[in-house]
């Protein structure tokens, strides 16, 4: 094996993603979309896709282009494709937003925005799948975390497939009966495939490796880890495959979803057990901010799972689905993403700047690029705000939800400022910052000669 290199556009992915996170928080704080608008209203659909595609998917893909080669010890199949991939996704998201505005009669209805969005987003995800798929395919070994990522990438196909069907039906490009039936009933499958299959399963796979790496804990290849993978696959197969079949054949769709939920919850429980084991078995006693804050994200995942169980028992999952989705998207996925970004941005910047001169001259440590004490308060504010927002959604008090979203926005601003400072080496002492042979990094990309 030859090693992994720095992916040139990783920072551009992260910056784009953070832009959309901030945009989404502005919308929520300003009362745009749910709970002021209905779940299916264009404003809510815009908000949801800004979060799911603009923030979470772009963040995840940026991380995967860097992380999959590390995971399987094999170079990325194609180094230049990530940039067109990003451009296709961003322009596709813009077209999708315009399509939703069209539904709300807020823009000129003549242009086929939904069709355009289908093509551009389809292309962006296809590029990403091709690049990551070929990388995984060519690798000599695919450890368990990589197999979680493969399941996540397969779920992208299902998510995007449903999304394209919905877009074409909404745009009245097609009136094909089964498509119209799916557009009427399969929204929940689209959400499960995206939030559960693509984002959560991938995050689970990545977290197994990252947590082990940063805490000096053993790599898990336990039977519980394998069982979590297989149960996760089974839950997705039942929800996506079984759910689609049920809609098209008039079978009991709710029964399929309930079955999937039970298997999925079991998988989450096994994952939770593994994570507790990782934290306990770690050799590193004092853990860094990213692992401490990841624990709060993991607690949010556990809380989402408990909430689902309680609501299923009470038979009220549908009424409170928005609160569960909010907690999973912002507490679990976004919380984990922000926490790990804190370390990843510092590490990649450190490697880019100081890697070439390590050992030749005195260089700062990775931890010298960050000031954890300053970042901790923003992270704590972020998680508290997310949990407050969840409670506000459960009790249905929208001013409190807007207040919580505003607090999330402030916290995110604080966190993003830390990322920018790290990237510009602003927290490294002036004497240590730029030894001979080291150049200040660019904010958004690494030089092309980095290998």
């Amino acid at each position: 094996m030859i090693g992994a290199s720095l992916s040139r556009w990783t920072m551009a992915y992260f910056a784009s993603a953070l832009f959309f996170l901030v945009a989404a928080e502005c919308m929520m704080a300003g009362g745009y979309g749910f709970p002021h608008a209905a779940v299916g209203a264009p404003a809510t659909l815009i908000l949801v896709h800004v979060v799911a595609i603009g923030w979470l998917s772009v963040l995840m893909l940026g991380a995967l282009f860097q992380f999959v080669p590390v995971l399987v010890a094999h170079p990325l199949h194609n180094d230049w494709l990530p940039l067109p991939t990003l451009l296709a996704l961003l322009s596709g998201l813009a077209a999708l937003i315009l399509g939703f505005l069209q539904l709300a009669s807020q823009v000129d209805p003549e242009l086929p925005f939904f069709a355009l969005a289908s093509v551009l987003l389809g292309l962006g995800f296809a590029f990403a799948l091709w690049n990551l798929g070929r990388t995984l395919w060519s690798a000599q070994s695919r450890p368990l975390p990589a197999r979680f990522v493969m399941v996540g990438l397969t779920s992208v196909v299902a998510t995007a497939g449903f999304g394209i069907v919905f877009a074409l039906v909404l745009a009245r490009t097609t009136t094909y009966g089964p498509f119209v039936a799916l557009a009427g009933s399969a929204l929940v499958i689209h959400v499960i495939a995206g939030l559960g299959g693509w984002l959560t399963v991938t995050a689970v796979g990545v977290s197994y490796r990252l947590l082990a790496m940063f805490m000096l804990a053993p790599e898990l290849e336990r039977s519980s880890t394998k069982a979590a993978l297989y149960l996760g696959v089974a839950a997705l197969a039942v929800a996506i495959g079984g759910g689609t079949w049920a809609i098209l054949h008039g079978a009991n769709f709710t029964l399929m979803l309930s079955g999937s939920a039970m298997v999925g919850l079991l998988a989450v429980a096994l994952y939770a057990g593994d994570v507790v084991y990782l934290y306990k078995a770690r050799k590193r006693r004092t853990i860094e901010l990213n692992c401490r804050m990841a624990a709060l994200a993991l607690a949010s995942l556990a809380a989402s799972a408990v909430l689902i169980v309680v609501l299923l028992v009470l038979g009220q999952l549908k009424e409170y689905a928005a609160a569960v989705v909010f907690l999973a998207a912002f507490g679990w996925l976004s919380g984990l993403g922000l926490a790990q970004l804190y370390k990843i941005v510092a590490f990649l910047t450190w490697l880019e700047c100081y890697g070439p001169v390590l050992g030749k001259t005195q260089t700062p440590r990775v931890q010298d690029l960050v000031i954890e004490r300053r970042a901790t308060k923003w992270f704590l504010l972020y998680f508290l705000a997310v949990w407050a927002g969840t409670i506000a959604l459960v009790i249905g008090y929208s001013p409190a939800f807007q207040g919580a979203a505003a607090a999330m926005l402030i916290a995110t601003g604080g966190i993003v400022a830390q990322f920018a400072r790290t990237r510009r080496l602003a927290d490294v002492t002036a004497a240590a910052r730029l030894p001979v042979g080291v150049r200040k990094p660019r904010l958004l990309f690494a030089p092309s000669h980095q290998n």
Partner: protein
Amino acid sequence: MTVPLLELDVRPILRAGGEPFGQIMQAVASLVPGQGLRLLATFKPVPLFSVLGAKGFSHEVRELVGGDWEVVFRPTDVAAGVAASATAASDGSDWPDPLHHLDNRELDPPEPMVRILTATEEMKTGEVLSALLCREPIFLLPELAKRGHAWRGGFEPDGTTYKILVRIGTGKQATV
């Protein structure tokens, strides 16, 4: 002047799940001065560009029909002699006993990488360093290659300790 290119097709090895790196380096070591290498692979071997670039080879890349890749590595003016001597270590030839031993298994990342690179900077050409790690040093290997050092590494039979041997190369001065 025009020595024919040495051709190496590693696609069968890659398709069988094998690791052709040793064979590629062996082929590079066997090149006569001025000779280039035509490599056929199932993927674009990007890290090789810097490994061989550090040894003075330029590269031309072409994607073949069917998704395979052809890369032609040609020695630039100063390269051929240095390249052969610097990379010979990656083949099966015997290395001297390690002069230094590092146990980096309990260190927080990326401290193991920092210690190894620091140690290599204080060693002389041909000397060997041995280090124990708790995982494959993914980001260290390209850096060693850029500095012209050769390495051999792999997991010990216990499956958790990764042992790497680094032999200090002659390409050291040519780097960054």
